[in-house]
């Protein structure tokens, strides 16, 4: 099933064959011609299979299979037959003769590739021949790549073969970089060349401490190259994708960011900076009053995916009510071990305690764009603004401006209004991708709110912010109250991360279900007024929320049937279900 640019020549599964209206006469002529062709084809195929069966590994085998592969290079078994022939002849022929045969094979392959430059089989066979030939001429191969890339500069088979040749013959990588520069100069819109640069730079100018692994001064020069390209043709996506890479995104260092201990739920929740899988290179350990605690770490939902949040259910009586406890959590991976929150104290009268790692203001989510120094980004923003004045409706320009503004000002203090305006414009000029832009906007908004909070804030207000989705809910693990009303949310699945949540306002969203809330076991007050909940079964999700006292459901289609409210009430004894719009102030 996995066939891409694979269907050429005689093949039925073909790209770009135009349906042509023909007369009955023409059809008959074509049928006759095809009948003839098929006869030849079948006879040829039969002959090749017969020779192979008889293990006749000779020049005639090459000739017969070559005739068919010349028209259809995708008959993979015939390439295999040719390889068998060459392997057989390796011991039987003189080196000079073998050299000649394999050289002929290279010429044959060139002819095939001219007709079908995207044949996987032919390109792979060329690698085989170059490995088998007694005296390979790699210089000629590089030249061949140049020729083919001149014909089609996006032929990824040829680019891959080129990288193979470069690797085998130790071509100087600086020359390869030079080659991509030439290609880009002759046509900026050359995604393959930009791609190759992204692979070459970290090898030629490595800097392992850098998020994109390239030396800063080299990156600055690359910015110039890109700028040249985007000013020449601001609609060309290749350069913009490349520029996004230059702006960089770093891998976060793995560390414990937050630990929360709950006495009555008898459990500890840990937030990590990156998703991991416990037991696969990483493990967390807990000790209470220096005694190690036995238990199995799990994700909140029981999902088997990598996660940033991990929970351990403590054995009974691990945290007795009347006793002070000292809790230590340690994260270990294959290489190093970080102790964290040593001596986190849970006092006798406390229900819960927590500790949060210190972060430099504005640094928690900035890894998306952190490669370039702030001064570089400010400069970039300056020139992009210039471009914007020339191209006010260019989506690439708008999006890049947005990213730069966000990177320079993670808390949205400086550019808040401009960001908002840019997002609106972006969604208007590129309506096909408006959902992407709204989600990005939601992400940035949530980041800015979380960045500006310190860890003591457990009450988050995100009402009426135009949110289309939720991001970074794992960072809200300590939040006890959140107002998400009057947004455009369609799913609250990720709210399961909010393990301390007591009060949740979801009024005036677009929710049809409440999936995820089953895991918010502390929830006492929930309002979902004016959503799109139709089925009473949706509320089954809340059965595990045993502390739930108040649930407001007014304004949902489900309320149309009076009986439904009674059914929802039955979820737990102390639950009060409100289905009147004005009963909550």
């Amino acid at each position, binding site marked *: 099933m996995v*066939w891409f640019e694979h269907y050429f020549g005689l093949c039925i599964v073909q790209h770009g064959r135009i349906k*042509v209206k023909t007369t009955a006469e023409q059809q008959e002529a074509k049928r006759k011609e095809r009948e003839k062709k098929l006869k030849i084809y079948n006879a040829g195929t039969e002959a090749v299979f017969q020779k192979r069966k008889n293990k006749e590994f000779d020049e005639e085998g090459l000739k017969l299979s070559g005739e068919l592969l010349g028209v259809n290079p995708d008959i993979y078994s015939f390439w295999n037959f040719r390889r068998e022939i060459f392997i057989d002849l390796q011991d039987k022929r003189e080196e000079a003769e073998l050299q000649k045969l394999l050289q002929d094979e290279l010429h044959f392959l060139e002819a095939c590739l001219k007709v079908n430059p995207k044949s996987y089989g032919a390109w792979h066979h060329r690698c085989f021949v170059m490995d088998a030939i007694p005296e390979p001429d790699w210089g000629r191969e590089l030249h061949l790549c140049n020729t083919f890339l001149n014909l089609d500069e996006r032929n990824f088979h040829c*680019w891959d073969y080129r990288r193979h040749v470069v690797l085998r013959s130790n071509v100087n990588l600086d020359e390869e970089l030079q080659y991509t520069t030439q290609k880009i100069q002759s046509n900026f819109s050359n995604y393959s060349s930009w791609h190759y640069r992204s692979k070459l730079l970290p090898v030629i100018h490595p800097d392992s401490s850098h998020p994109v692994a390239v030396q800063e001064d080299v990156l600055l020069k690359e910015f110039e190259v890109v700028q040249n390209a985007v000013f020449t043709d601001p609609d060309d996506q290749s350069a913009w*994708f490349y520029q996004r890479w230059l702006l960089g995104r770093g891998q976060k260092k793995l560390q414990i960011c937050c630990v929360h201990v709950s006495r009555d739920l008898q459990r500890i929740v840990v937030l990590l900076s990156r998703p991991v899988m416990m037991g696969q290179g990483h493990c967390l350990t807990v000790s209470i009053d220096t005694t190690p605690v036995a238990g199995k770490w799990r994700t909140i939902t029981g999902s088997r995916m990598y996660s940033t949040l991990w929970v351990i259910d403590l054995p009974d009586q691990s945290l007795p009510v009347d006793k002070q406890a000292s809790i230590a959590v340690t994260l270990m991976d294959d290489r190093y071990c970080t102790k964290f929150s040593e001596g986190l104290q849970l006092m006798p009268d406390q229900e819960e305690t927590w500790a949060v790692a210190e972060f430099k203001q504005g640094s928690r989510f900035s890894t998306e764009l952190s490669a370039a120094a702030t001064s570089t980004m400010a400069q970039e923003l300056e020139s992009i603004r210039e471009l914007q004045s020339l191209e006010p409706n260019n989506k690439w320009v708008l999006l890049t401006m947005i990213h730069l503004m966000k990177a320079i000002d993670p808390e949205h203090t400086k550019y808040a209004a401009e960001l908002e305006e840019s997002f609106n414009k972006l969604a208007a000029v590129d309506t096909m991708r408006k959902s992407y832009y709204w*989600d990005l906007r939601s992400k940035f908004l949530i980041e800015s709110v979380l960045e500006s909070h310190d860890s003591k804030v457990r009450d988050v207000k995100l009402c009426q912010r135009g949110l289309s989705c939720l991001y970074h809910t794992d960072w809200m693990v300590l939040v006890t109250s959140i107002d998400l009303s009057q947004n455009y949310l369609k799913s609250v699945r990720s709210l399961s991360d909010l393990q301390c949540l007591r009060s949740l306002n979801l009024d005036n969203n677009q929710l049809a279900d409440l999936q995820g809330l089953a895991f918010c076991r502390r929830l006492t007050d929930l309002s979902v007024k004016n959503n799109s909940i139709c089925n009473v079964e949706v509320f089954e999700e809340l059965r595990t929320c045993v502390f739930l006292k108040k649930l407001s459901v007014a304004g949902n289609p489900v309320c149309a049937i009076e009986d439904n409210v009674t059914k929802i009430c039955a979820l737990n004894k102390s639950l009060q279900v409100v289905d009147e719009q004005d009963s909550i102030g």
Partner: protein
Amino acid sequence: MKESSVLPPRIEPAYSFPLNCSTNLAKGKFPPVCNRRGKMHVCNPCYLVSEDHASPVLLWDAYVFNSKGTPIKDVVIPDSAQKSLLLQKHCDYIASYGSKKDDYEYCITEYLRMSGMYWGLTVMDLMGQLNRMDKDQVLQFIQQCQHECGGISASIGHDPHLLYTLSAIQILTLYDAVDMVNVEKVVEYVRSLQQDDGSFYGDKWGEVDTRFSFCAVACLSLLGRLDAIDVDTTVEFVVTCMNFDGGFGCRPGSESHAGQIYCCVGTLAITGNLHHINADLLGWWLCERQLPSGGLNGRPEKMPDVCYSWWVLASLKIIGKIHWIDKEKLEKFILACQDEETGGVSDRPGNIVDPFHTLFGVCGLSLLGNETIKPVNPVYCMPEDVIQRAGIRLELL
């Protein structure tokens, strides 16, 4: 509107450009076509002279120019294009496709027969008419294609390969009949193709490609035997094929390509390693594949194609970002690729249909929510109920 004299007379399409692009005429080479809201839209319908050099045919492939004169490769969907799904016609097309065993096109595609059968059978199941296919004949054929080494070939007489081994296992899963082949040997064959770096050869001849990583992992997971390979290094290899744009290529260093991305994202989904993906970055690249016509291409600056629409759409579904493309427009594009006379779906409007694009067109519509088609599993490209029956539960983003 002046027509360039070198071109044959144009069959007038109903031009409706969703694009809003100003242009300076690219060196006068291309005829202006229409002028809306004061802005010039230029396109160059390509003409193809048919074999007898008599009747020129209009290709819907148009070149639309952006403000700097760079052509945007896309097609124009005529207003007359088909707008409803011709399900029964597609069923009839597939059912009759395999029955003409001495047909020219059928014969010369023997080297991919196993995959061809998978495309046809899967799309028939999705359309609820799998019972029209000759099950016994299919199963017997697959049995005959298993080799001593355990691998399965495209057809009798051809060599075993991972591509066809996966197709065969997919068909057997469809029929709930994996025991028809020697499963232990299949597992052994797949295992034998894994290399130290975690990559997979496609067959004993040593071509390495992330497509084969997907084939191996998909095949073994359908057989419930992922334990037979080193999953950690499999994942490591796929991750080394990740690129600056968040996408994936054939091998480390290769350019991102929607088909390759589908294979890598699928491999990571099956092995529970989707966290390696930067969903925001990759999702952005993927939704930028959608062109003004609504169709999706497989790489920047390429033509839209129904099958690429599938690779992109399925990948977006797996990473939880399917809403980032314009569903209505894509649906319109796929429906326009149907052939009203013969049934079946082609790569682009007006082209010749084939089972391959028929499957991916129907799968695309299923992912877009068309309820007359069975839900399709975005990772395996098989009916969701079949995947459930096989006991596979995947967590997507």
